[in-house]
């Protein structure tokens, strides 16, 4: 039992359980605990969870990425304009946006690694730059900043299948969580991610290519933002250059609630998973209770604080001897 409590996801798991039980009781009459209710919070958790996963890994390596919001928005508007205004095949446009995402990640990573500037500032700048460029170009090309998107059945299946209320994004989320779990726990690269964030001098001393680790993670994060942008564009059959800004802070919040240490070096994909569950359960649960949703931000703020306190307690526990 004590061994389980020492795991980095322990705090997030118990918090998720508590939050879920709370809303299960508070919103029992509104059928929060039903197939539809469950699908509703899973949908919200999934799209955030995919993003939080990538941000979480980057944070474990000691870096931050605020440009994800702009990549999500730019992805959706590029897909929409490409397929709708220029009639390009959706698959080709998908290849184009993933290339674009990869390039953004590469630029973020190279700037951070080469200049040594804080990634918080660097990616804040790229976030504004890309949003501005996406708004400007879409206005220039189509005279609007949002547009509908054309898809094919294959694209629809991959990014927007639905079973009842449940979106395929849930499968993406679970699959990517398992992949991240495999990489972090069972590959040398995963070891390097922890080491890069835990003590970069010691990591370099041991021969870990810390710059490469960071660049790979910046690229992964931007590609993940592209995936979320594509899921949203296909799901709603529309793109908007201003989409995605909500994720800029929601993803790191879910990551911190999930037990990731803001300073890097600590955290786990399962913790990120439960952090996103908590966020989804609260934001959907509050609708089901019928309370005024104005309270949502207050609850989230209090939860963030509680999560940080709980996680620092669990971390101290992890540092006591067996």
């Amino acid at each position, binding site marked *: 039992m004590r061994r389980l409590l020492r795991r980095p996801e322990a705090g997030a798991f118990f918090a998720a359980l508590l939050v879920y039980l709370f809303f299960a009781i508070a919103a029992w009459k509104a059928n929060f605990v039903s197939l539809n209710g469950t699908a509703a919070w899973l949908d919200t958790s999934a799209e955030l969870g995919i993003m939080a996963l990538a941000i979480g890994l980057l944070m474990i390596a000691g870096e931050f990425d605020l440009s994800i919001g702009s990549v999500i928005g730019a992805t959706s508007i590029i897909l929409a304009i490409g397929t709708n205004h220029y009639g390009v095949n959706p698959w080709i446009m998908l290849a184009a946006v993933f290339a674009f995402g990869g390039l953004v990640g590469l630029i973020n990573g190279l700037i951070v690694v080469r200049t040594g500037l804080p990634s918080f500032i660097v990616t804040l700048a790229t976030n504004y730059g890309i949003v501005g460029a996406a708004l400007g170009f879409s206005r220039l090309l189509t005279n609007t900043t949002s547009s509908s998107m054309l898809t094919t059945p294959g694209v629809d299946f991959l990014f927007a299948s639905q079973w009842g209320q449940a979106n395929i994004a849930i499968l993406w989320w679970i699959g990517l969580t398992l992949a991240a779990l495999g990489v972090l726990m069972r*590959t040398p690269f995963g070891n390097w991610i*922890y080491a890069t964030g835990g*003590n970069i001098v010691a990591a370099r001393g041991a021969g870990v290519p810390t710059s490469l680790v960071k660049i790979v993670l910046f690229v992964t994060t931007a590609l993940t933002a592209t995936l979320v942008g594509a899921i949203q564009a296909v799901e709603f059959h529309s793109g908007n250059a201003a989409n995605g800004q909500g994720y800029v802070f929601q993803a790191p919040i879910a990551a911190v609630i999930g037990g990731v*240490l803001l300073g890097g070096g*600590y955290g786990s994909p399962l913790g990120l998973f439960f952090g996103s569950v908590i966020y989804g359960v609260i934001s959907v649960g509050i609708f089901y209770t019928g309370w005024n949703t104005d309270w949502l931000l207050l609850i989230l703020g209090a939860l963030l604080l509680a999560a940080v306190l709980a996680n620092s307690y669990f971390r101290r526990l992890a*540092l006591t001897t067996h």
Partner: protein
Amino acid sequence: MAERAPLIELKNVSKGFAGIQALSDVSISVHPGSILCLLGDNGAGKSTLIKILSGFHPPSSGAIFVDGVQTRFSGPREARGLGVATVHQEVGTIPMMSVARNFFLGAEPTRGWGPFRRLDIAKAERIAVEQIRSFGITRVTHGDQLVGTLSGGERQVIAIARAMYFGARILILDEPTSALGVKEAAKVLTLVKAARARGIGIVFITHNARHAMLVGDHFVVLNQGAVSAAFNRGEKSREEVLNLMAGGRQTEQIEADLALFEQDGQGVL
């Protein structure tokens, strides 16, 4: 002692940075199974000497010999490849990672093939615990224990055990005991002796003359970038060594100042 070629030898090495002479005409040699203590006050040139030994800086003049062969390290990697391992104070380990993951960082064992190649955690944990326990750190029983649960001395031992496991023949220990309490320092000093018994050549850098006298075979005192004294075990008393480190006259001056201070009645701190 050893009549074989020294593991590593510096001959008349000098190093200047932008006109400032950090080292002048320093010669030292490290033999297998012996401990060379490098003593000196802050700013005496110890750090520069470490960086030359571990391949971070080339010397401005003079020569480095490894196993009797003149060598010019292209960088720290080449020095490591030749068996020169440097363990720095407090930067060797990562607290929020497990003992096994720390031990094998940068040289992780894997099993399987191609896309199924994965970290062999069981093997890493088994070897790490074996190695660390063989140096007397019995508090490590599980490889998945976080390094942050261990004391400063135990972390230092892990860093040293790790360097030895990966084939270090020459260990450069940079102030390994200076941040530690008495018991902790004893653990590290015991390990240093154990490493000597295994035939490792050790450069023990410290400004703690007591720790140096406890384990050292040979002693070199640096003062303002130059060797001010070189002697063997038992040739000098601790007071003599302390005086040499401080440059002799300065110590007498400090003693005189302290005596005056106490006469003023302000001696109780």
